[in-house]
């Protein structure tokens, strides 16, 4: 019968999924340079698929459920220890790989992955505030821009809905420390957020285009995103808040369940080549932790103000990490309460 023939044909196409030479990457959205992927595919004759996620929690949750089909993930350093502790990762020793020697000394032995046993550096950066200085001409050094916005910014501030980062910002603004469980501080941080929300226009991830179009005049954002905005509109300036700047890094790991382990290892090694690392940075505009990649970077990234933490904020810079579950639980409740 014709119909059954059609069915057979349709199913035949569904089963041909796991061919040789495949690599399945699970990475943040709008974060991976297509040129890098093309180059990898050409060099090793591997077909790469890309799937996006938009929060560490989503990625971790999927990985914990298992059977994702992903070979590679790119968790942030704050969550990486959980991935390791939960036994989700394959010990591939990127530090010992051929290109492992290229890792910059600062990033060669990080506390979230001592000895680089699991992860290869992808990119690192900070979270701060991008401000359109055509709209706002005041001082550019404080979380107040987002949490206590001046009149000209009210109703034009966006806040990326990244719970941990925003709560850290609110805590730092009130003089607290990362992962603080201090009741007084948290009460103040809660009040800060509740009060600030009325001045926010939105809580969106897609900041670049809306900042450029003028829908937003300021946004809590990551430095690379801010640089992409500045390159299109020089009036947009990235602020390192003096009360506290959190630095983060994302790192390439191989999942224990990976079906294409060799290709995944090739990929880890591949991205630690300075020329390839520069490709990564050229797209998303963050620094990458690979020594010698600067010379391959686009001219407009060299000496970019977004990449170096400003003098006034240096003393209060902390490395992002995940808080204890009990503290995290309070943060979730604060967050839900703010968004109700």
């Amino acid at each position: 019968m014709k119909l059954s023939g059609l069915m057979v044909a349709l199913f035949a196409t569904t089963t041909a999924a796991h061919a040789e030479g495949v690599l399945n990457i699970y990475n943040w959205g709008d974060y991976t340079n297509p040129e890098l992927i093309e180059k990898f595919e050409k060099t090793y004759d591997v077909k790469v698929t890309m799937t996006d996620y938009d929060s560490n929690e989503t990625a971790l949750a999927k990985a914990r459920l298992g059977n994702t089909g992903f070979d590679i993930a790119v968790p942030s350093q704050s969550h990486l220890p959980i991935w390791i502790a939960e036994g989700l990762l394959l010990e591939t020793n990127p530090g010992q790989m051929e290109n492992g020697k290229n890792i910059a000394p600062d990033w060669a032995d990080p506390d979230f992955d001592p000895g680089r046993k699991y992860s290869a550096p992808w990119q690192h950066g900070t979270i701060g505030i991008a401000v359109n200085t055509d709209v706002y001409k005041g001082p550019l050094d404080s979380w107040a821009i987002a949490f206590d916005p001046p009149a000209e910014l009210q109703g034009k501030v966006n806040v990326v809905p990244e719970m941990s980062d925003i709560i850290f910002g609110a805590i730092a603004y009130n003089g607290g420390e990362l992962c603080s469980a201090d009741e007084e501080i948290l009460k103040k941080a809660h009040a800060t957020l509740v009060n600030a929300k009325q001045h926010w226009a939105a809580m969106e991830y897609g900041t670049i285009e809306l900042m450029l179009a003028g829908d937003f005049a300021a946004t809590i954002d990551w430095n690379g995103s801010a640089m992409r905005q500045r390159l299109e509109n020089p009036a947009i300036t990235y602020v390192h808040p003096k009360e506290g700047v959190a630095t983060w890094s994302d790192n390439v790991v191989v999942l224990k369940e990976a079906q294409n382990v060799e290709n995944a290892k090739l990929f880890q090694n591949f991205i630690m080549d300075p020329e390839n690392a520069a490709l990564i940075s050229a797209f998303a505009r963050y620094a990458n932790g690979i020594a010698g990649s600067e010379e391959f970077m686009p001219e407009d990234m060299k000496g970019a103000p977004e990449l170096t933490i400003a003098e006034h904020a240096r003393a209060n810079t902390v490395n992002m990490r995940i808080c204890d579950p009990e503290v995290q639980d309070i943060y979730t409740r604060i967050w839900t309460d703010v968004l109700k």
Partner: protein
Amino acid sequence: MAKPFSVKRQRGFTAMAIACFAALYLPIFVLVIFAFNSASSLSHFEGVSLRWFHEAAQNKQVVDATLRSFHVASVAAVIATLVATMAALATTRTRPYPGLTFKYALLNAPLMIPEIVTAVALLIVFSQVKGWIGYTGIGYLIAAHTAFCVPFAYLPIRARLENMDLTLETAAADLYATRWNTFRYVTLPLLWPGILAGLMLSFVISLDDVVITEFVKSAGQDTLPTYMLGQLRRSITPEVNAISVVLLLFSVLVVTLFFFASKRRN
């Protein structure tokens, strides 16, 4: 000159209806226009160009997602229509029998459950199943799509069947036609428009799904709508418009074909 009196006339209704039609099409119209913008702006039109269509066609992720969307939609629609046809034959033109109401309720249930709830439920269940049987392919996505397509295939087929009386089939049976031959040569040809409607509806519904796909998809299983959702969250360029226009054209084409096909038959 005063308009002639009509019992059907209600003051202002026509104006309101026309306004509704205009409001329905204006945004789509704007979206289509900006897909042909030569600049990357979504607000200032600078000239006609196919630039964004080219860019979308060059984008491997877009091409892959498009193929995947059509793949999932065609498999899901064919299966859903097949099983829905069988189910419709079993639940129409009969006296009520035990379990009939249960069948109605179950077959239409996907229409009544909020998508987000189904999505969450499938996320949990499929990840367990994946652990047990080790298969992680696109079958889960197809299963999920098939399930929510079933009512969309079932309803038009059932409607068609209910409007067909049993005269012809009884006549065939009187002529000693076998049950299968009766179905093959009498019921099926009459039922065909309903089946076609079911097939097209499920195809379009599957093609458009975002929420359930977003939760169920695993490695490299972005469909066009989930890819677009990702883009909307990050950076919007007229490329999204271009993709939308292609998808839009396709849906309109399918529905139009169906419209004229059913018209001709009538």
